[in-house]
């Protein structure tokens, strides 16, 4: 079964990228094709290799292992020498044991089921924060019909110019301030 797994792993790159068509991959395809069909591939026919590859991929399945370690990683657990493993010796049970003991080891895995990320460690209690009551801020709604007072109020203008050291235009008739309508407040 291992030879089919190998072929499944490099099949996509082999078809996509000519530079990946190395001798050992061709040898594996020849071996697997002969194992599967009993037929031999012509050594010099590059199209035959691709056809053989597709036949192998369509008629075999990859080994059903859910977890895979990155190459070169050695998983160890203090006090549990029997749990030491590399990718070559990893099983799903071992992977789940390691991830339960120390979830941060997920970074050493190149393949794992998606649900693993949500498994909390046994010694950590997840506290869900209480929902705060939504506060409704009181907002003043400006009457659209009301003119902008700050811009048109002559008293304000006069005050502003006095602060700036200017003399107000005395000839201009000073109008009394406009009475504002009561503003409705919404809650």
């Amino acid at each position: 079964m291992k030879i089919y797994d190998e072929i499944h792993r490099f099949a996509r790159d082999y078809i996509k990228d000519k530079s990946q068509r190395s001798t050992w991959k061709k040898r594996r395809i020849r071996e697997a094709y002969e194992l599967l069909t009993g037929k031999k591939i012509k050594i010099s026919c590059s199209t035959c290799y691709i056809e053989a590859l597709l036949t192998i991929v369509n008629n075999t399945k990859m080994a059903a292992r859910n977890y895979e370690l990155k190459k070169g990683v050695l998983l160890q657990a203090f006090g549990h020498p029997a749990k030491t493993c590399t990718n070559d010796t990893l099983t799903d049970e071992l992977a789940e044991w390691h991830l339960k003991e120390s979830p941060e080891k997920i970074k050493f895995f190149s393949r794992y089921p998606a649900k693993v990320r949500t498994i909390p460690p046994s010694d950590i209690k997840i506290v869900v924060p209480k929902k705060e009551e939504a506060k409704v801020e009181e907002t003043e709604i400006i009457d659209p019909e009301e003119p902008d007072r700050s811009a048109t109020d002559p008293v304000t203008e006069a005050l502003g110019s006095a602060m700036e050291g200017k003399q107000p235009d005395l000839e201009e008739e000073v109008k009394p301030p406009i009475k504002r309508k009561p503003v409705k407040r919404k809650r």
Partner: protein
Amino acid sequence: MTIGCNQIVDCILKNCAQLVPGIKDIAYFINYDHVDKDLSTFDPDNPLLLTSLVLKTVSPEAFAYCVSGYNFSNEHNTALVKKTYQKVWDHNFIFRVFDNTPETKLWIKNAAGSRFIVVIENNYSKVDPAGVLPTGRTVFEVLGWDQGLELNAAERNTADEEVLGGWVLTAGSSDKIKESLPPLSLFVGGTLLLTRAAIASMLAPCCDD
């Protein structure tokens, strides 16, 4: 007052274990870009002891590729290079390919255009006489950790009496930019057995052929 950044803090005592020269005929080549330096780890007390060498998960798949010599045809040397202000290290790996197939030439052409690190296996495996330090820390070494090595020379002489028309290849540090440290020792999991297992998990399937 010291002129540098380091000080000597330990002794070197007489080594009664007999040194064994040479390296094994098999070496492992890893593309420089495929090394996951974030997940690889060092001994906290010694930056020359690599305790985990991890490859990235990339497509096409990253591997350690085997290069097999024959009858001690692989050689390694390293040397201190003194620059004006700093001292750096030159790593070299000389190996011979006793073949001249199109596949061999394609390999050489690809190697000439790439950077890689090389893992070598020394014949010398020191056994600590006091039994304190684990055995096997002197076995595997990593060349080109900082910058990677490149192919500095590739020569084929059909009249060569030693290689008989094969290739003599020299991989080494770049001409100007050298390594900051001597070759790193690789020792994973505290035993030589686990170090071998970790290396085995990186090997390309073609190593079995």
